[in-house]
């Protein structure tokens, strides 16, 4: 058993000013196994991995690889020693080709000077063939969807002949089919004796793919068990430290009359064609579909930040133009965007500035200046209401966890008093406990007569809290189902209709 241990971390401790992020964490990875690392956001999973890769320097503890103590100073050094990581947020040179990205920093050379493009191409093809990836190595990164870019990242990790590969939320932007492919690759790596650390929030995946599960909570090790011994309920209980009997709060909202009518929206610069549906007051309408089926585009077209070629929107029977974000906000719309970092947060600004930015008019006095007091009050109200964990209002938002950032942005939108909330993947990258809170919030909004339109890639989530689900496929509406008597199979069939 002991010889089988590939990577061993003992008593890892890391303290940040005011927080003990890791407290004597132990972790063991066996050769040829998939070891899932689970815990709520802020439990210390990422910090542990960053200590492994030398991105953070650990305060205490030891790390052994193949029995030898190691202490990487950078992820580069880790890579050279066969420890690779596939990041959740991809850091790639988007303007460069696939193979440039894979061999970056270690280009094969001719006579030590010129880059050997031919060898690079062949080597890339060899790795791709091994993994069954069908991507042209000469293709420019930015022209490919995120899922394919992620595959490239995995290929890169494999190309280093890594002994240990860490997957951080690898499936968050993959379709079901791509997830299957990823699992094939993982199984293949496992068979080759590679040790895999798999970080994810998706229970079903974890149950399927992993051999062992380690659960962390509040920077501490909680349990390590064989995956077969743990049921989903056990995992959740260990993660949150309390019983979560229901994943979803009880549905209490009752949809009223039709409020929003979307008629035949066709995109000017995107694949949307003749998208038509309606949403009622107090209703939670789900938008389901595969990646690039046009769900995000639909929300953004309604919100007026994507150009519509045809189609109209009526609100309570009255036409409503929504030519840009300002106009949409005035008409009572709010859009929670999919990519929090790119289009949601103002990283270097503090919580208060991030909260009030869409509702500055509320704080304007005499048409000239902004009342500091009312900004503080509004911000505090939503920090309390959303139970956002932050040291103060002056904290920069980028230092919060994903779930807390999301709460700040939801607060930002609630301050605009919206009638229609367009939520794009509202729970992506958020831990179980915070997810429940966000579901409850969405239901409360619906109970107060707001219309919620929600895009999600997690089917159980849509089935759990929506009233109706509109399924999109290839930029069109493929069908509409009642959330109470439908199944994942029915939705998947519809989602594949126009692919």
């Amino acid at each position, binding site marked *: 058993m002991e010889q089988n241990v590939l990577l061993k971390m003992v008593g890892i401790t890391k303290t940040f000013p005011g927080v003990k992020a890791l407290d004597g964490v132990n972790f063991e990875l066996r050769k040829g196994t998939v070891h899932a690392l689970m815990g709520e956001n802020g439990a210390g999973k990422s910090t542990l991995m960053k200590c492994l890769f030398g991105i953070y320097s650990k305060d205490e503890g030891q790390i052994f690889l193949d029995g030898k103590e190691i202490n990487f100073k950078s992820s580069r050094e880790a890579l050279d020693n066969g420890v690779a990581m596939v990041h959740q947020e991809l850091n790639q040179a988007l303007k460069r080709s696939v193979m440039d990205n894979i061999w970056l920093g270690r280009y094969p050379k001719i006579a030590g000077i010129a880059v050997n493009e031919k060898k690079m191409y062949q080597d890339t093809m060899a790795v791709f063939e091994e993994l069954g990836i069908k991507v042209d190595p000469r293709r420019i990164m930015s022209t490919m969807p995120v899922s394919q870019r992620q595959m490239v990242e995995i290929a890169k990790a494999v190309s280093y002949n890594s002994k240990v590969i860490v997957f951080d939320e690898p499936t968050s932007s993959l379709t079901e089919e791509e997830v299957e492919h990823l699992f094939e690759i993982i199984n293949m790596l496992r068979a080759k004796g590679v040790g895999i650390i798999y970080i994810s929030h998706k229970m079903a995946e974890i149950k399927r793919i992993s051999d062992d599960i380690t659960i962390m909570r509040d920077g501490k090790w909680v349990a390590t068990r064989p995956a077969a011994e743990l049921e989903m309920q056990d995992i959740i209980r260990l993660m949150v430290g309390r019983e979560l009997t229901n994943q979803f709060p009880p549905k209490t909202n009752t949809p009223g009359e039709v409020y929003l009518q979307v008629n035949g929206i066709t995109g000017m610069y995107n694949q949307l064609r003749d998208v038509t549906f309606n949403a009622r007051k107090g209703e939670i309408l789900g938008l389901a579909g595969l990646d690039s089926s046009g769900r995000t585009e639909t929300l953004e077209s309604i919100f007026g930040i994507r150009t519509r070629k045809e189609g109209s929107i009526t609100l309570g029977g009255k036409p409503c133009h929504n030519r840009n*974000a300002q106009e949409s906000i005035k008409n009572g719309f709010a859009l929670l965007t999919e990519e929090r970092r790119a289009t949601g947060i103002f990283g270097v600004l503090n919580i208060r500035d991030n909260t*009030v930015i869409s509702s500055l008019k509320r704080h304007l006095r005499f048409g000239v200046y902004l009342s500091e007091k009312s900004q503080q009050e509004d911000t505090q109200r939503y920090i309390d209401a959303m139970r956002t964990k932050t040291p103060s209002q002056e904290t920069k938002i980028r230092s919060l966890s994903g779930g807390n950032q999301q709460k700040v942005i939801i607060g930002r939108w609630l301050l605009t008093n919206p009638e229609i909330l367009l939520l794009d993947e509202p729970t992506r990258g958020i831990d179980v406990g915070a997810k429940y809170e966000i579901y409850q919030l969405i239901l409360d909004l619906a109970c107060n007569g707001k219309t919620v339109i929600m895009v999600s890639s997690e089917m159980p989530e849509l089935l759990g809290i929506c009233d109706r689900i509109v399924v999109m496929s290839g930029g069109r509406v493929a069908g509409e189902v009642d959330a109470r008597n439908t199944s994942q199979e029915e939705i998947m069939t519809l989602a594949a209709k126009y692919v």
Partner: protein
Amino acid sequence: MENPVRNLQRAAEEYRQKSAKDKKRYWIDGILNNALYILMAIFVVYTAIEKPNFLTLGSFANLITQVAAYLPMALGIAGCIVLTGTDLSAGRISGLTAAIAGVFLQKTDFVNKMFANLPEVNDGWILLTLLAVIAVGAIIGMVNGFFVAKFSLHPFIVTLSTQLITYGIILWFFSLNGNNSQPISGLSREYKLFVNGEMFRLGNVAVPRYVAYAILLVALMWFVWNKTPFGKNMFAVGSNAEAAKVSGVNVFWTTVLVHTLAGAMYGYSGFIEGARSGSVAINTGLNAECDAIAACVIGGVSFVGGTGKISGIILGVFVLRIIFVALTMLGVDSSSLYIIKGAIILCACALDMRKYLVKK
């Protein structure tokens, strides 16, 4: 506001609980984070020992006078830097507005008066001229902002172009009415008084009126940056333009307005510069933006975007001016002066950037 004494007590308590290693780290961090001030203090003490008259009221009056002259342009350009941009046209815009102000406010009986039929210079006419040159600056700034916002061009390119265009206009302006590119001189007494007029004396050195104007401008800009929706929007756009757009910020108008406001500041700078130097030449204002940008960056207005404080800008201008005044006093020749200035800007920025780097 929290009690400062209690804050200090808490800090002291936290310090006592640190380990020896952490204590060392604390001091090194403290020294590096405040290196700029420490170096300035050493520099000032050294200069004061070498040249005793450096630490006099008169010398201080000289310093704040210079700061007041350089500050407005830095205040304007800082907005562009907050938007992750820059402005290369600032100096030339102030040169043009200085020339316009000079021509409008030449002595009535001056022999080489460029436009003979202008009304007599009085306070009303001076104010009108001031408004006019501010408007000229604002319009050029607006052009900058329009091209940046409308066509998503980098401000570097846009302002490089408007810098050349403005220079062309300056050359054309100086050749009007047979002026033949001669400097504009013979500025009226009233104009000089309006700008340079003595408010009071500090150690036998007169403090001119434009120091008071600069204080007013600082107050105005502080208000605009911190208390108005425009200011909040500016920081939001600088921090993340895409998110700002989704959040309903009018990114186009915010960008245009930031540049317009900057242009107005350059216009005002030109007006002051004309009277300050007594005559306006073709190259008045040349490269002034370099000092202004340097001051902003020293003062922590980062090119990363979305960060910066008015107090930082003032500090930056102060630092640059102290160096200039002290080195001149020490009799350093101009070649070394530029080398030292460049080195200090480089060090200051490197030290400042340290604060923004995420500690790992």
